[in-house]
């Protein structure tokens, strides 16, 4: 394959260019800000053209191709340490680039309609382009340092976009929370980078992965653990996941793009990239798997109790990310990436669908205000909805398709990826290290899959089936259903494209055993073939029969779950059914509803004691000693600055005096 430098420059450069054009022109000219069509088209092209470039690269690449490098320039160089702006095009980075730019393009398209009435339209698109730029740096980087820059860049953009409506206090708080939790993870990641550099003397992936023997077992464990902590921050896993649900405060396209499809999967990308190193430490693998499974079930149970349409989706995202971590921990790196891809499709579709719903509910509220009715309701609360399928058929159909996909019903995308993960977890049960633990994790995963189908159908049925409940719940909203409407074409186009991908997306990873059973060569899992040079997968050792049994079991679980959900929520019984669950599960339900009190736990276990301790003990120490010291230094600096300036008396002969002092100083140094 010829050098990809030109294409990579385009892929990386165009989003940056889009950001600069929209940012600078928007900042400097108010006239430009109102040209929303132009802004939207520019921003879209800045992502869509890179997508085409990535597609070109992809078509010229096959599973056996060696990685191609695009070294744009060396930023700085001293001795052995250099900062290279260099990109690596290989099977893994191509998949990620396609997802980022492809899903990114669709979400950009959707945003034109969604943000049409927002004042900060130009700013929004500038940020989105910047995000794409940072994300592409992250997935295409050929060294850890550049990856880290992209990693920080996406964090920054996420912070800016969550707090996009920064005038709303709770939203800027959510932004701060996301920022802080991410810093904890980033710090760990940075230490890991230092440790790697210290041992290998290079941060280049190729160099690191070919000189893994330089690490002691202990090093591998600690580096792996630190990278994992970094990944848990960015990919919202226990213990750092609490920021993600709050992050849904941002505009919905942001939730879809950043907090579902791309940024939050960067932790999975990073671990897959480093997979040859991770498989060397079974302990870390197990920790990864446990964290993943635990996050999956914790988030799924919380999701059951939520009423906020985006809240359910947020916890669902956390839960699905948990699945991906379980896959990583089970040595199924390909399956994790597979799930990243399919999840990007259906979750983006779900978020955008929810955005469409919220959009119309807000429209209803505005219309009512226009009519002079002073009513307030939460446009995101599913209890106010119901029966929307009549009014927004496209949104309904796409939402339903995506729900079926995430629930794991064949042959939609989610089924294949999730099944592969569960199967690998089961397979690891026969492994040498902590086998029993993996059987438990398999059980947890299966229960989570059941819960996933359940809460997703609960959400769909409550929102779209039955009757529109707002008029019954709130006075003054009678007849408001007439204001419900389908979203504009830019939005539905994006929805339908993503729904289509949710249907067919799974075919890139068909299970191999199916082919074997029917006399094939057992190589129908295209993704597996594609990534085999990069992902250090632990192979499946199960027999064909066992695999068939597991798959059938998974289908049954999902089907039963959907059936139960239909029975409980299919026809306006949301209130009674929630109450029934609450009574059945009693204390558990309360725990779920309180989100395991994790926010309070962090508050109570870490923040409060720290504050108390610092109040009582540290404060004294701080005030008397540390503060005193710091103030003394700062004070000395400021005072000496203030005093020194009075040397400058304004009289020229005094200046000459200092000049002569300088002469004496210079001559003294030279002559003696």
């Amino acid at each position, binding site marked *: 394959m010829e050098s990809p430098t030109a294409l990579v420059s385009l892929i990386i450069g165009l989003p940056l260019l889009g950001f600069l054009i929209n940012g600078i022109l928007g900042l400097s000219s108010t006239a430009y800000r109102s040209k929303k069509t132009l802004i939207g088209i520019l921003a879209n092209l800045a992502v869509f053209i890179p997508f085409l470039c990535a597609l070109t690269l992809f078509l010229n690449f096959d599973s056996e191709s060696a990685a191609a490098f695009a070294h744009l320039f060396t930023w700085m160089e001293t001795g052995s340490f250099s900062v290279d702006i260099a990109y690596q095009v290989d099977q893994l980075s191509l998949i990620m680039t396609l997802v980022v730019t492809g899903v990114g393009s669709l979400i950009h398209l959707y945003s034109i309609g969604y943000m049409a009435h927002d004042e900060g339209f130009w700013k929004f698109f500038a940020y989105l382009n910047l995000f794409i730029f940072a994300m592409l740096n992250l997935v295409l980087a050929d060294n850890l340092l550049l990856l880290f820059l992209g990693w920080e860049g996406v964090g920054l953009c996420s912070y800016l976009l969550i707090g996009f409506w920064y005038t709303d206090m709770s939203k800027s708080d959510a932004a701060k929370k996301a920022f802080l939790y991410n810093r904890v993870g980033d710090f760990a990641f940075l230490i890991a980078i230092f440790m790697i550099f210290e041992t290998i003397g290079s941060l280049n992936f190729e160099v690191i992965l070919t000189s893994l023997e330089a690490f002691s077992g202990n090093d591998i464990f600690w580096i792996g653990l630190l990278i994992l902590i970094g990944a848990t921050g960015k990919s919202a896993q226990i213990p750092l996941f609490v920021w993600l649900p709050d992050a849904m405060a941002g505009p919905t396209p942001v939730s879809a793009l950043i907090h579902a499809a791309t940024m939050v999967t960067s932790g999975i990308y990073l671990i897959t990239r480093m997979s040859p190193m991770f498989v060397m430490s079974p302990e870390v693998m197990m920790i990864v798997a446990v964290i993943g499974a635990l996050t999956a079930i914790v988030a799924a149970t919380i999701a059951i109790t939520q009423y906020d349409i985006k809240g359910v989706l947020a916890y669902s995202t956390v839960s699905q990310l948990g699945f991906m971590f379980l896959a990583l921990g089970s040595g199924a790196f390909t399956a994790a990436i597979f799930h990243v891809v399919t999840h990007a499709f259906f979750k983006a579709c779900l978020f955008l669908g929810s955005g469409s719903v919220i959009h119309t509910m807000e429209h209803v509220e505005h219309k009512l205000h226009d009519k002079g009715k002073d009513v307030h309701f939460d446009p995101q609360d599913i209890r106010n909805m119901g029966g929307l399928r009549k009014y927004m058929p496209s949104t309904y159909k796409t939402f339903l398709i995506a729900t079926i996909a995430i629930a794991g019903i064949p042959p939609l995308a989610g089924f294949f990826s999730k099944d592969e993960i569960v199967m690998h977890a089961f397979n690891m049960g026969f492994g040498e290290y902590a086998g029993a633990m993996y059987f438990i994790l398999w059980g947890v995963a299966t229960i989570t899959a059941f819960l996933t189908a359940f809460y997703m159908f609960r959400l769909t049925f409550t929102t779209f089936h039955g009757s529109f409940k707002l008029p019954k719940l709130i006075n003054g909203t009678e007849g408001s259903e007439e204001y419900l409407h389908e979203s504009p074409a830019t939005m539905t186009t994006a929805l339908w494209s993503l729904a289509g991908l949710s249907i067919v997306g799974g075919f890139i990873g068909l299970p191999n055993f199916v082919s074997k059973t029917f006399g094939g060569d057992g190589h129908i899992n295209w993704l597996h073939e594609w990534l085999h040079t990069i992902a250090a997968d632990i192979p499946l050792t199960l027999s064909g029969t066992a695999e068939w049994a597991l798959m059938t079991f998974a289908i049954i679980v999902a089907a039963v779950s959907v059936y139960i959900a239909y029975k409980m929520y299919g026809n306006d019984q949301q209130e009674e059914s929630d109450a029934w669950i609450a009574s059945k599960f009693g204390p558990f339900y309360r725990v779920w509803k309180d989100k395991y009190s994790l926010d309070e736990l962090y508050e109570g276990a870490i923040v409060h004691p720290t504050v108390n301790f610092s109040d009582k003990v540290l404060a004294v120490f701080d005030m008397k000693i540390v503060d005193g010291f710091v103030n003394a230094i700062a004070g000395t600096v400021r005072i000496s600055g203030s005093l020194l300036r009075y040397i400058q008396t304004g009289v020229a002969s005094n200046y000459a*005096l200092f000049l*002569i*002092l300088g*002469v*004496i100083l210079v*001559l*003294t140094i030279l*002559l003696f």
Partner: protein
Amino acid sequence: MDTFIFIFLAVLTIGSGLGMVLNRNTVNSALFLVLNMVSIAGIYLLLQAQFLALIQILVYAGAIMVLFLFVIMLLNLDDERSLFSKVRAKYISAFFLGVVTLSLILYSLEGVADLLPEISPEMETAGTVEALGDVLYTDYLFAFEMTAILLTAAVVGALMIAQYKKSNNGASE
């Protein structure tokens, strides 16, 4: 003979220099400086730099100092009683710094006489106009041209600064 002339001129130079610094009357100071420059020109003659001795008198004593005197008269600044610094500490520190600087320079002059024992015999010809002109327009052409720019700039600049209340809008004057 040379020695006596030197001592005479040296005393004259230093005396007139001190006179310039210490005299309260600005016109007197300027006249002391003229005297100082003339006596320095005499020392140039001792050093066999005839041409420069001539220019010293013409340019410095003749042109530059006349300009000084002209400005002093123009501004009517003859008496400076009030303009003498009253702060004693300043005299002391200035004197102290002067002594230190002088001693550092004198210290560095140690041993020069051994290296350069006498006036070079070539000076018979080297101090003449021909000798100077010969190198000035060849080897030192660059500096010479730069000096031309310097003097042009000085004349224009002096006009710019000294013009009184020139109205600057579009150079109407």
